[in-house]
């Protein structure tokens, strides 16, 4: 099997070509070097910075999503969680600004967009937050994994992912729900159906369930 050598936090390890940095660490018995969670690119625990084989800085990544490459160097870059602010009903740009006053510090450098492992247009979305286009912001942050790299790289202390969460929760909790169905009244018919599905021995139950999922009716 083809192997490559990579360095993680200055330690050289042999990795199998094609695997991720995280799996290479596991195979080397060095899993503790990088904080790890889901191993599927969605929990944001294994944030790292990467240097290309030539030595130039490539930027940030998730170690569990980063395939090994001969000569690459990986540096752990854990991001602590930030204090969160409670969502508010019917959010506006002004309410967001009150919750996260650092919003206006953004100098449009674009580092946050570059750092985002989910390809979210972070800086553009911060500008949309400023102008109060919150529905679009909520959409932008649909795929946010809350790794915090956008906050980590921001020299001005802006917290895009925290604001994205605030906007999404505020909008989500203000949505009208389809309450008719949700408050379904349990009718007498429902009780009869339960009796049908739960009655008899295990063979009866199975037959009743099979039959009921086909026709949606009780058949005696």
């Amino acid at each position, binding site marked *: 099997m083809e192997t490559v050598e990579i360095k993680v936090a200055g330690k050289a390890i042999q990795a*199998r070509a*094609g*695997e*991720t940095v995280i*799996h290479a660490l*596991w*195979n*080397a*018995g*060095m*899993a503790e070097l990088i*904080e*790890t*969670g*889901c*191993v*599927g*690119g*969605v*929990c944001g*625990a294994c944030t790292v910075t990467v240097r290309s084989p030539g030595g130039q800085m490539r930027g940030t990544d998730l170690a569990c*999503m980063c*395939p090994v490459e001969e000569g690459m160097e990986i540096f752990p870059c854990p991001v602590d*969680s930030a204090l*969160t602010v409670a*969502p508010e009903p019917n959010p506006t740009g002004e309410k967001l600004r009150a919750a996260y006053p650092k919003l206006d510090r953004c100098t449009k450098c674009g580092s946050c967009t570059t750092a985002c492992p*989910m390809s979210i247009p972070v800086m553009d979305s911060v500008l949309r937050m400023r102008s109060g286009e919150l529905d679009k912001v909520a959409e932008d942050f*649909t*795929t946010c*994994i*809350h790794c915090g790299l956008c906050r980590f790289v921001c020299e001005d202390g802006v917290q895009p992912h925290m604001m994205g*969460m605030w906007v*999404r*929760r505020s*909008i*989500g*909790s203000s*949505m*009208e*729900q*389809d*309450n008719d*169905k*949700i*408050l*379904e009244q349990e009718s007498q018919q*429902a009780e009869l*159906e*339960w009796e049908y*599905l*739960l009655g008899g021995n*295990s063979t009866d*139950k*199975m037959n009743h*369930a*099979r039959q*009921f*999922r*086909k026709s*949606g009716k009780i058949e005696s």
Partner: protein
Amino acid sequence: MEWAKDSLSKLEATREVRLCSEPPEFDTYEAEKLLDEYHPDYFGSQRNVRVGPNADNGKFPNELADLLESDSQLPFDFDPTVDIETDVLILGGGGAGASAALALEGSGLTVHLATKLRLGDSNTIMAEGGIQASLGVDDSPRKHFADAYVGGHGNNDPDLLRVLCENSADTIRWLGQLGCILDTNEDGTFQLRPGGGTSLPRVLACKDYTGLEIMRVLKDAVLLSSTKTLENHAALELLDDGSGQVSGAVLWDRSRGNLVTVSARAVIIATGGSGQLRFQEFPTSNHLGAVGDGLILAYRQGCKLVDSDSYQYHPSGTAYPEALVGQLVTESIRSMGAQVVNAEGRRFVNEMAFRDVLAAAIIREVAEKRGVQTPTDRAGIWLDTPLIDLQNGEGVLRRKFPGIIHRFERYNINPAKQPILIYPTLHYQNGGIQIDRDGRTEVRGLWAAGEVTGGIHGTNRLMGNSLLDITVFGRRAAMSIQSDLPERRPVTLTSLKGYRESLQSISSQSRLLSPQLFPTKAGMKIAFERKTAMKQPNEGLGVTDQPSFEPPDPFAK
């Protein structure tokens, strides 16, 4: 994917005909034969356990049986002295634990939530496809029940399943109030997708990131609550009062390297599943910590485990590229029209069959050499993803399944244009700790919720029922505790002592220590400062070749 050129051209050649074809169907007899011959649960890699509540009663995968017959990580002379006193201790920081914590908010009880990783690092956050709720016009909790009962082979506990199905609408409302945004139609009603084995569309989703949406909202809400979160605190053992009631737990603080003894009036186990035990060396879709800790802890306290021989191998795990092996490709993509096709371009199974049947069918195709060999020495079956856009319009795949696109694009594979290779991946622990309708275990003082429990899903879970399970039963356990909170009791290791004695009665003891906390593959070791002078661990068992504790490393972070 130049190496698969021949097979790809066969697939493309049949696409037009397949588009209008009816899927091949198996009757009940054929499906059962298929399961019997090809589903990993039936491979015979299972055995009895000789000690504890399931002694010679029920089968377990060999790897899990070994852990159940293993000694504790705790030193023999460890003497618990209370460091933290709380009313409720929740073990596990996934969806079930977070739901329980939120349902305890405002109860006046002190709540600690301990998690081995960070809050939210869990299988919940990786769930893609959605959450079932019977909100459709012609749907009802009874239809939901019938689907899940047939899907679970009738091995479900009907009472638990009824509770699950009757609470789906309320759960969606609760998630909405917390601020979860699920996909809606233009008229504001929820979009309902079909799932494997659902008799009508019942799956609500947030793109293919439903678990992420739910978990990040639950996490944010927990961080804003009065719950004290103990991250990087792994549960090593449960404590009891000496007469069969659970009274707390011993945690290992990974960051500081010491043990923490917690006294609690009620403990909720919400530690999740065990996919990282990688039975029969299957790849897994599970997170780092999924090694069955909660099963071990509860078992030593006398909790019976149900259906522990039953695991779900998700039919569409990624088989190529190597870096993504085992990772999930959501079932929704099949419900939207992506077909499952063998190396010869032939469709061989109904893509919306129950998960276990579909997984077995894929394993059979590969076993009978109709799979596609990858350059990394694996084999898989095509999932014809370009069909989504062909049937639903250009751009639909990207809009509805951004996660799939995001992951594969990095490897120059565009699933909107090229099919992807799949093979079943170890996904879900169907069985687990036996509970009642309120999440109570058989042991006083101990509740359980989520993937660690068994009975709800029988021996095969339907898509979208686990996100529902964790939110329904996590909250129910919390409500039950509020109405029936035990008094505070002394903390002892009496149950563990008894278990250790019974371990000595069996021959050929396991040389492992459990709970294992992390996959052996990960090589993560326990290294903590001891509170008391320790004798040789496991000396009673005569095991000396695997030291359980390393001296503290002064250079460790």
